[in-house]
């Protein structure tokens, strides 16, 4: 692995999971799987001394370095990062808010394509995550399973013959597996069916939450569906529950809601998404909340063929790249909220104005 102190390489590109491809990518943004693992012979993080944390970090790092495939994997010492850099990695979904805000020795190894990352000293000693574009849980599982096997060959995991992989919080014990599918559901929000749909989901062991970040779930229309239980089911069963039973049903409801909106008044819908694109393309200053709100409409417009000169990947990336730390990294300095609003508008204009620009890759 190689020490990465400069995150500007990441700023200039976007993760694979944002490319807007893969099954059901008009509705499913990403499929994420994470595994929680702890090393045998160390207390869990809550009871670790600073020295314990350092030992865990050093031990995991040196063992990962034994894996030849990890030669080119950037390794980031989170403790030494600035607040903006930490926030940047959170926005990028490569680290959690918890590890960004905690103290003491902690790190993350990041795959250059951003498909996977391994956090060291989060709530558990190890949090491995894999993220793919679209509804792609099976290949995400195959990838994380291989990574887990490779790491397990190097370190001894805390494992219990009855309770499975032992975790700091009993909500993760057993498989340590959390499957999360990020869905974009503007149709269900506009038709006010979203609560009804999710209320029915509560009976089948899934959890639903809005997207993290500066926007609220109303503005971005993003919802994350995850498995609630981790003990007593195999990994395959949990994947099937989320990926084959729950998510396809929500996708179906969202498609029906979109069809209803088109039948009810295509002109109104077309007008609505075109105005949203107009505001994003011409505003001179714009808040994060407003950006999320209008990008959500534009994204639906692109998927329904009402806007044909903007790529889905561009919209997906704009959701992430217009967030506060991204703007500050792109600008190379700390910006006030008001400065960010101006920079955000200018950034949106650069990427949405003019047919030639609209299909450009963001950088």
């Amino acid at each position, binding site marked *: 692995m190689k020490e990465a102190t400069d995150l500007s390489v990441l700023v200039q590109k976007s993760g694979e999971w944002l490319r807007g491809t893969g099954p059901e990518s008009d509705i499913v943004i990403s499929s994420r799987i994470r595994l929680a693992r702890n090393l*045998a*012979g*160390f*207390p*869990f*993080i*809550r*009871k670790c001394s600073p*020295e*314990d944390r350092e030992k865990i970090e050093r031990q995991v790092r040196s063992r990962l370095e*034994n894996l*030849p*495939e*990890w030669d080119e994997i950037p390794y980031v010492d989170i403790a030494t990062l600035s607040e903006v850099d930490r926030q940047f990695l959170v926005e990028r979904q490569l680290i*959690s*808010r918890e590890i960004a805000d905690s103290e003491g020795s902690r790190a993350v190894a990041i795959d250059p394509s951003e498909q996977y990352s391994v956090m060291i000293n989060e709530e558990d000693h190890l949090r491995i995550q894999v993220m793919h574009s679209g509804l792609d849980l099976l290949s995400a599982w195959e*990838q994380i*399973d291989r*990574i887990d*096997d*490779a790491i397990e*060959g190097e*370190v*001894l995991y*805390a*494992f*219990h*013959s*009855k*309770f*499975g992989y032992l975790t*700091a*919080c*009993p*909500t993760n*014990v*057993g*498989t340590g*597996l*959390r499957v*999360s599918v990020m869905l974009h559901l503007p149709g269900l929000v506009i038709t006010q069916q979203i*609560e009804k749909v*999710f*209320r029915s989901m*509560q009976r089948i062991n899934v*959890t*639903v*939450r*809005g997207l*993290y*970040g*500066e926007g*609220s*779930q*109303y503005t971005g229309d993003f919802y994350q569906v995850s498995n609630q239980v981790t*003990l*007593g*089911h*195999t990994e395959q069963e949990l994947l099937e529950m989320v990926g084959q039973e729950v998510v396809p049903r929500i996708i179906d409801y969202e498609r029906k809601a979109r069809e209803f909106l088109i039948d009810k008044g295509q002109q109104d819908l077309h007008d609505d998404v075109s105005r949203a694109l107009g505001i994003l393309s011409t505003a001179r200053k714009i808040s994060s*909340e407003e950006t999320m709100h209008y990008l959500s409409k534009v994204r639906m417009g692109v998927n329904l063929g009402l806007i044909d000169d903007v790529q889905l990947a561009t919209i997906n990336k704009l959701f992430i790249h217009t967030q506060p730390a991204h703007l500050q990294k792109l600008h190379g300095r700390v910006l006030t909220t008001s400065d960010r609003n101006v920079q955000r508008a200018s950034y949106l204009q650069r990427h949405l104005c003019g047919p030639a620009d609209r299909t450009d890759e963001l950088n």
Partner: protein
Amino acid sequence: MKCQYCDKPATFHITELTEPDGPQVLHLCEQHARNVLQKGEPTPVSSVAGALAKQLQLGQTKEELRKLDQKECPVCGITFFEFRNSGRLGCPLDYDFFEADLKPLLLNIHDSLEHTGKRPTRAAATADSQADLIRLRKEMEAAVDREEYERASELRDQINAIQGEPKRRGNAI
């Protein structure tokens, strides 16, 4: 409308869909909304606390609860009271030490007590050897502090013997 947590105007209206009693609407200022939304996954503390509250309502007297709260893991020193408040355990041995106390909680959260998923291919360390490892590490640190390096190196050998050598495999990632 004012924020539920401060006097600023509530500009974010969030419907929390993960509450067991049905959707809960929050009216918040930008700062408090960000705090709520940045929590990521639903807080384990609240789900653990909820499950514990249900468990503790069932038949435990105040005296029994007081005794349980004082119960302390001999390896990491966490008390059940500390766990109840933080939602986090202190070490792998806690799953054995507090097993009877955790079972109703695990059943409440997962509706199961038996792992049926993936298992490590390496023989997992037993609960005892995991506890030994933690103890030996503490002893080794103390020996180093006292500059008893010979003792420290003996302890290191014992730790390595329990941990075993890492497997060498050419796993493609």
